């Protein structure tokens, strides 16, 4: 029996990422390529994802959130580190074991227009996985199962023979969810699942994801830049900056008691949809742009834009450890006062 077949018990860690590192080489030359540097896309990150839980990975573009997800799926080979699914190291699985794992970890993509094949009916799109993973659903039962799945995601089962272009953006994202669910995954990696959708439709998809999670006990790795949606849907949130996790904790830890200056700045930049609160919140405007991940600053990577930076920040990279805030934070000078009662 292989580990990926086991059903996780409640609150069990289904995905454990330890010291994951992914560097991309920068090369020069066409015939005689030589490496002239490395992009440190993901640099030593660790986190746990438990059953039935949603872990949010947030940060700005280029911070490494999508590379993390791609490396966990082994769409990229890790430079070093471990990721284990229910105790089995993903990076040591054989090809056939890897196929079984991919069934258990499914992905929902950002762009519902680009991620569905325009020449396949939605019935074909949903059953495609079963052609690779034989035995998930027996052939005679497939049609009935597609009907069930379409109903589960709130689509009309009579539309099974329609093509993606006949659906709106929100409906296409539902098709993407149905396709992911077809293989009975334990984990779904949601890479910006609602950011391409209209505001009035986003809430529908967010609610759908929550309902399915409750019903099936799924775990989500939720990658997004919309911090309002993340606060709503995630149980735990990891804030990333230049390939590192700078702060990790639950909703109240990260949003209401943020201890890392980057988290503070990031959250203060999120506009609050209430004009009465205008000017009441202190906005921290960061200077300049994110430094290049090919040449990150020494010590703490945020120090070049940090108003608290001192000499020690340039020499010692701060560890992501608990520093009296009740949750781990990678800063030498974390915010100390508590707002929570």
């Amino acid at each position: 029996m292989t580990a990926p077949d086991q059903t996780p018990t409640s609150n069990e860690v289904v995905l454990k990422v330890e010291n994951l590192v992914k560097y991309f080489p920068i090369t020069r030359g066409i015939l005689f390529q030589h490496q002239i540097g490395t992009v440190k896309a993901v640099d030593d990150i660790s986190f746990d994802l438990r059953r039935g839980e949603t872990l949010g990975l947030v940060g700005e573009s280029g911070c490494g959130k999508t590379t993390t997800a791609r490396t966990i799926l082994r769409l990229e080979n890790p430079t070093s580190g471990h990721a284990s699914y229910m105790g089995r190291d993903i990076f040591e699985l054989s090809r056939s074991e890897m196929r079984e794992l991919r069934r258990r970890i499914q992905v929902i993509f950002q762009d519902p227009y680009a991620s569905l094949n325009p020449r396949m009916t939605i019935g074909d799109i949903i059953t495609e996985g079963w052609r690779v993973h034989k035995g998930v659903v027996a052939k005679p039962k497939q049609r009935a199962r597609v009907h069930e799945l379409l109903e589960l995601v709130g689509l009309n089962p009579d539309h099974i023979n329609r093509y993606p272009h006949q659906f709106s953006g929100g409906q296409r994202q539902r098709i993407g969810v149905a396709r992911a669910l077809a293989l009975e995954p334990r984990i779904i990696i949601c890479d910006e699942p609602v950011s391409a959708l209209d505001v009035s439709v986003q809430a529908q998809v967010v609610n759908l994801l929550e309902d399915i999670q409750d019903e099936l006990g799924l775990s989500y790795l939720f990658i997004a830049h919309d911090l309002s949606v993340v606060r709503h849907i995630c149980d735990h949130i990891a804030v990333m900056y230049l390939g590192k996790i700078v702060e990790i904790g639950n909703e109240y830890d990260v949003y209401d008691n943020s201890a890392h200056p980057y988290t503070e700045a990031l959250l203060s930049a999120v506009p609050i949809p209430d004009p009465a609160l205008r000017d009441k919140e202190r906005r921290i405007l960061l200077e300049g742009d994110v430094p290049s991940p090919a040449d990150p600053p020494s010590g703490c990577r945020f120090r070049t834009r940090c108003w608290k930076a001192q000499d020690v920040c340039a020499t010692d990279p701060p560890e992501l450890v608990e520093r009296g805030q009740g949750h781990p934070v990678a800063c030498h000078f974390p915010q100390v006062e508590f707002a929570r009662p």
Partner: protein
Amino acid sequence: MTAVDTYKKNTIGDRALDPSAPLLTVDDLHVEFRMDMGTVKAVNGLTYSLDRHETLAILGESGSGKSVNAQAVMGIIDTPPGYVTRGSVKFRGAELLDLPESQRRTVRGERIAMIFQDALTALNPVFSVGWQIAEMFRIHRGATKKEGFERAIGLMDRAKIPMARERVNSYPHEFSGGMRQRVMIAMALALDPDILIADEPTTALDVTVQAQIMQLLADLQQETGMGLILITHDLGVVAEVADNVVVMYAGREVETGEINQVYHDPTHPYTLGLMQSIPRPDVHTDRLNPIKGSPPDLMHIPSGCPFHPRCPYAREKCVIEEPSLHEVAPGRVSACHFWKEVRGDRA
């Protein structure tokens, strides 16, 4: 004084400007696109006005007509297939819609400037940013190359692009997303326009960069007194900067009013639905309350009120009769037959 500093005349072409008239008035604007597959009614009756120092937000989802409205005001709709079929756009009382193209060109950049969502596609990749900014002075003001470049450096400084003098000869791809947006802002401000239209200026940017750009726009507006039209789908951004807001749905204006009133006391079910469906960054929300369905196809806009298939207040009247704009309070309109009910439910 060089030629670059010519004062703006108080006429547009042969039309006199009335200094007491509002900066911009748009009245009952209709725009449609006649395509092979049918006619897309992109804007169906839009009315608003803008004054100096004012920030007006036009809030709507994709396909609501918010960007087409801006293109009509700028006069940059391709005809065919796009036609402005009805309505008026006046700058200080002077009608712009029937101006000949040669005179219309003097309005763009000088009077009304625009910045776009995607600065990388809006900028020309084969010319340096300095050249592109200087183009404004060369074409509109007959400046020399050298004068133009000096001006461009000054504008890049104003848009807070660090090391402007060193970077004036760089190309758009050498800038980050936020810096490119600053280049566009510099270009838009070149001729000191009276109105700046910002079409989703921060949608492609990260949230910390968005905050920087919105701050820059606010500072520049403070400095010049220009009127700012902010076109966006982001309820948060609107809440932070707008004085007044026009909410659009399926090409129609559904609600207009002062920002606090619209957010705290919506009188249209669509506005109310939007407010209730979004999560907030500052407080915990248990369950989102979405609007059912999805926005209509503009080739097949529902009969009566276009929002009726998604509206919890809809009844027979809404299917048959298109609601007119009801004045619910001074300066506030709602396009809902049952606006009193929508409002009453909140009280």
